[in-house]
């Protein structure tokens, strides 16, 4: 068993694949970040991300996978799920070891797992498109804070840019501490310093009518409920509790 430690980037992961083939490794473990464990008798390789090597692996993958298949692989890695890198490595190896395109070979455990990861990522992305609640600030910017389970912020930018083309907005991932800012033309990645201000909690910075519309929305949410059909289980399944703290109607 050999452990490969890499920097967590997609290029880094592809460099790991290169190492595996070059050193003809059979059983590997993959770990992100620094190597901390002091266990004896373990073989550890610190993989330094190498653009050339990553590029060769990428090119090889592009020959074997469709454009959509490449995107899914990239999105699955971007999501940053714990302990899934080894499945992604397994998937890539299976792709290289097969003669034909195996994207739809759902009988294979790696292909199936990738499909599952993508389903989870898509669901989280879709939930963000649904559950993001903007609040209008005095400078006219619409601000929303989120804490998605997976790193899906880069995937939702396009949706919000198309939809809110005529308003400035910020969507901020509190957990991963970065956000998207749309200035009516482009989307930029930003980080905010919350030591001096907490924009998710500064009521004084809202526009005057923000309170009115939040109030109207909360009232609307109550009014459309039909008590005779109460079904808490179904409600909780659709809107899990961890999302409530950012939902205007549930606060």
């Amino acid at each position, binding site marked *: 068993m050999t452990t490969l430690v890499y920097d967590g980037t997609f290029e880094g992961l592809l460099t790991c694949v290169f190492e595996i083939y070059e050193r003809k490794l059979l059983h590997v473990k993959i770990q992100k970040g620094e190597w901390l464990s002091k266990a004896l008798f373990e073989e550890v390789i610190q993989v330094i991300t190498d653009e050339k090597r990553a590029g060769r692996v990428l090119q090889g993958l592009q020959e074997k996978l469709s454009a959509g298949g490449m995107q899914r692989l990239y999105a699955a890695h971007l999501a940053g799920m714990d302990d899934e890198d080894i499945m992604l490595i397994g998937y890539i190896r299976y792709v290289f070891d097969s003669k034909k395109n*195996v994207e*739809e*070979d*759902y*009988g*294979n*455990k790696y292909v*199936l797992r990738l499909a599952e990861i993508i389903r989870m990522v898509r669901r989280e992305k*879709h939930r963000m*498109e*649904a*559950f*993001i*609640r*903007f*609040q*209008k600030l005095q400078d006219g910017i*619409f601000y*929303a804070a989120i804490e998605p389970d997976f790193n899906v912020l880069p995937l939702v930018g396009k949706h919000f840019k*198309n*939809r*809110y*083309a*005529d*308003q400035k907005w910020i969507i901020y991932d509190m957990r991963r501490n970065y956000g998207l800012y749309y200035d009516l033309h482009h989307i930029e990645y930003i980080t905010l310093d919350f030591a001096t201000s907490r924009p998710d909690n500064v009521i004084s910075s809202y526009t005057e*009518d923000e309170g*009115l*519309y939040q*109030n*109207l*929305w909360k*009232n*609307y*949410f*109550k*009014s*459309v*409920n*039909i*008590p*005779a*059909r*109460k*079904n*808490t*289980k*179904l*409600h909780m*399944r*659709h*809107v899990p509790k961890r999302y409530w703290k950012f*939902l*205007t*109607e*549930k606060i």
Partner: protein
Amino acid sequence: MIEERIIEKLNILADAAKYDVSCSSSGSKRKNENKGLGNASNGICHTYTEDGRCVSLLKILLTNHCIFDCAYCVSRSSNDIKRAAFTVQEVVDITINFYRRNYIEGLFLSSGIFKDADFTMERLVRVAKKLRTEHKFNGYIHLKSIPGASDELMREAGLYADRLSVNLEIPTEAGLKLLAPEKNRKDMIQPMGFLKNEIILRKEEKALFKKAPIFAPAGQSTQMIVGATPETDVQVLQTANHFYKNFNLKRVYYSGYVPVLSDKRLPALHTSVPMVRENRLYQADWLMRFYGFKVNEIVNDTNPHLDLDIDPKLSWSLRNLEVFPIDINKADLQLILRVPGIGLQSAHKIVSARQFGKLNWDQLKKIGVALNRAKYFITCNSSRFERRDLTATNIKQFILSQSHSKFLKNATTQLNLF
């Protein structure tokens, strides 16, 4: 003061609109091409009510004043309730501000009939027109087509709205006569026919001239109340089928009757909502639209009602055991779709995956097949399969004993009027 009044109005007019179950905001392809506000392309449920229904649109009545006195409707003229009416501008402001905060996908605007059909329809159209032209709003708009409104207004409505709908309300003409004697089924069907032809016409035009305006791109839908009148499921589903086939409807919604009014023609006030029946009707509807089932395979004169304890596909399979077992590695997609416990996604995955090698139980399970139901109806790449010669009753008992019905807790006997 103004703020309180507008909150009160919203409460009244949202409360009155909530029995309309349609909430879909998909099926349109309106893009944000003018750098305006919004698009209508992908159907998003922004939140869910405590009864578990999706909230996608701002669903309100323009007013709950109404000249009609339909027994099943909370807004009927003889009901002693608070009445309110929005101005066109108020609806526009709330829609825009809700939309900008990502609360909603768009507007679902219905109305009680005040004065007459044209007067009412004209107001609805004015809201849509203002949103589209003055505010460059490209979000989803669903308008009710008011029965009896002029063709000219309907045509205008189609130019601004994504979807139009007329509610049939009661599945049969006789039922409608009983509960809404002032209403006429012909008046309801007439605008549906008009819109159907108009939609076809405009589509052809659009194919020829790219610049031609889009017309009600998300089509038409309708709603039927079930459980208010004594129709059987055959009657309900045949009506639905008729409208899918002849009027190109995108959706038929089934709304389990919620007893809100005391009337001797209606189920008593304490009767529970027929939620299980409603769910079974939707399952049957899906079988007709996506699984290739014909309506008389699901219900017919010998089986006029859907089983409440098992889903309609399992029900069909048990009546047609001679079709099974089928070999999952060989059967056509159409046949795989008929196996209980296999949904659309699993069926397609099976057909893709088996090109790479024969599938066994373990793989089928991982793909997402509900084996506790499917195992009685299929064979796969395994020597283990159901060898006993089980009867339909046996299979049903086995399956029921292993499953925890989501309805067991609130299962109630169905309404029996006569």
